[in-house]
C-alpha cells in the first residue's frame, strides 16, 4: 500500500495542472536552451536539441502561439538568420513548471 502525506486526489490534480505546452520533452528542451541565452539562432537550437527542422519549426510555432517565445528575423550579410528569444511569460512558465515538478517528486531519501 502506498502511503502519501497529502490528500489522495491532490497528486493527480497537480500532475494535471502541469503546463502541457512546457511538459512536452522537445519544447522543454527548447525553452531550457532559450532561457540560458538572450537570443539563439535556429541552427544552434536545432543541433543542440537534436530535432529535425520541421519538428523544431512546429514546436517553436506552438511556443510562440502560447506567448513563450518570439521569433527574430535578421540578415547576416545576405543570409537570412532566424533566431528565437524567450519571453517573460516563457521564463515564468518554465520556472513554474520546475517548481511544480519538484513538488511532485518525492523528497530525497524518502521513497
Amino acid at each position, binding site marked *: 500500500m502506498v502511503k502519501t502525506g497529502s490528500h489522495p486526489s491532490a497528486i493527480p490534480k497537480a500532475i494535471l495542472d502541469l503546463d502541457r505546452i512546457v511538459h512536452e*520533452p*522537445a519544447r*522543454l*528542451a527548447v525553452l*531550457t*536552451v532559450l*532561457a*540560458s*541565452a*538572450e*537570443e*539563439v*539562432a*535556429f*541552427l*544552434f537550437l*536545432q*543541433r*543542440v*536539441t*537534436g*530535432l529535425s527542422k520541421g*519538428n523544431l519549426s512546429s514546436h517553436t510555432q506552438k511556443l510562440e502561439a502560447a506567448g513563450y517565445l518570439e521569433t527574430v528575423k535578421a540578415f*547576416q550579410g545576405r543570409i537570412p*538568420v532566424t*533566431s528565437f528569444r524567450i519571453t517573460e511569460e516563457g521564463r515564468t512558465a518554465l520556472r513554474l513548471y520546475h517548481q511544480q515538478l519538484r513538488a511532485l517528486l518525492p523528497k530525497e531519501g524518502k521513497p
Partner: protein
Amino acid sequence: MTTPDLKTLETLTRDYATFQARKSGLATALGGLLAVVLVVAALSPNFMGIHVLNRLLVEFLVWVPLLWLVAKSIIGPLVYRGLGPVRALTDVAYERRRWRWILGLALFLLAVLLAALYAFASGRLVAHPPQAALQPTPMWILVMPFLYLLAMPWAIRGIEEARAYVVLVGQCMLWLIPFFIFSFGPPAPPLKQGWGLFGDVLGVGILVLIYVVLIWGALAMVRGWKEHREYLAILRRIPVEEG
C-alpha cells in the same frame, strides 16, 4: 532525437553564448605574439648585421594595433562561425570591467600624449639620436592615437581582447613618442647628461615594462590557444546532426 539532459543543455548554451560574445581565443594569442614581436624588434635594431629597425618597419609597427583589429574581425567570422549567433545573457559585472579597461586605455593615451608633449616641449626627453633612421614625421602619425581610440569600443568584445589591445597600443605609443619630437618644436637637443635618480627610475621602469610585456605576451599566446581549444571542445559536445 538525441537530446542531452537539461542541465547539459543549459551549460552548453551558456558556454557557447559566452564564447560567441568574446570570440577572443585566436585573437588573444595573436595579440600576445604581436606584443612579443614589437618588443623583440625594439630590442634588436640590428639583426645578424641587417638594419631591421628602419623607418618603414617602425611605421608598420605603429599600425600593429589596427592591423590586429582587422585580423581579429576576419578571424572571428571565419574560425568561429559555428552554428549561428547565440547572444549571451547580459553580464553586468563583466561589461563594467570591460568598460573600465576601455576607459583606462583612453586615460592612458591621454596621459602619455600630454606627458610626451610636455617632455619634448621642455627639452627634458630625447627619443633617439638625430642620426637614427627615423626622419621627418608624416602627419598621419599624429592621428594614430585617435584612431586607436576610435576603433576601440566597437571592436573590443572581451576583457582579454581589451588587455591585448592595451598592451599593443601602449607599445606603439612608445614608438609614437619619437615622432613627436620632430613634429612639435625645434630639432632635438642632445641627450641631457646627469639625470640622476630620475634616469635610473626611468631605466628600471622601462626594463620592468619590457619583461612584463614579454611575460604577458607569452601568457596571452598560451591562454588564447587554450580558449580556442575550449571552443572546439564546446563544438564537439554539441550533438552531431543525424541523417
